């Protein structure tokens, strides 16, 4: 689980162009949207693409997306349970 979270941190920085950030600066339980990491709606779409392209997981229900993309921990748990 920890290695998957570390992998997700690196992917997030690369795919979402968070160039000012280092993996260590992102907490596993930090909120990805809102006051946390401050991701926006386009980033949410990129996360959906990332899940499908890299882990073969399709997220089509917006409510499911809200649950999955809360934190890196919730993303990792969903990947583990569904891939």
């Amino acid at each position, binding site marked *: 689980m920890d290695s998957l979270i570390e992998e997700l941190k690196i992917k997030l920085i690369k795919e*979402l*162009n*968070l*160039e*000012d950030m280092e993996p260590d600066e992102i907490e596993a339980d930090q909120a990805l949207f809102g006051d946390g990491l*401050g991701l926006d709606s*386009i*980033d949410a*779409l*990129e996360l959906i*693409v990332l899940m*499908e*392209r890299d882990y073969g997981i399709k997220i089509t229900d917006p409510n499911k997306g809200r649950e999955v993309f809360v934190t890196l921990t919730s993303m990792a748990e969903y990947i583990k349970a569904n891939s």
Partner: protein
Amino acid sequence: MHILKYCSVSDAEITDGSEVLFKSNEKDLKPFLKEFYKSEKLEYPKFYKMDAQCKLAFIAAEVLFRNIGREQYQNEEIALVFANSESTLATDMSYWESTKNIASPALFVYTLPNILMGEIAIRNKIKGENYFFVSENFDAQLLHQQTEMVFQNTATKLVVVGWVNYESETNYSAKLFLISKSEVGLFPFTIDNINNLNK
């Protein structure tokens, strides 16, 4: 109408009026702009998410809006009149490539040229009129005519007139002019003066 200020970004060089503000050894646009962004300690993380053409426009606007007394103008009193020749062709091509796998939403949002005006407007809190034209070459007459029309028909007091064109990492240019409705400024806003300053 008068030109209050002008600046340019091309060939790894940023000028503020006639003065060279920054010069880089980086041959490619994106590392060159990143170098400037870092050296100026700008803090706007969204910069990293922009495509190259938006980054070019954004940095040019950062220079243009320095020390102009922005607070004198209401957000609705500033308009944007921009043009280029490439529209967003480079990003269109990148987006097209991405559609062969899974289309990238982050690329898609940059496949309209007026997005660069949006980035400038958000950063500088501009809520006035905005126009983007695609013309084969820099067309001072078109920009002049449109600016004149904006001043005549709206409450605009300040217009950012811009040419922002990105073809590749080594072939790009941004030229921005700040035009005031008043009769005071560096130069009268004439077609000849725009052409002369664009050289």
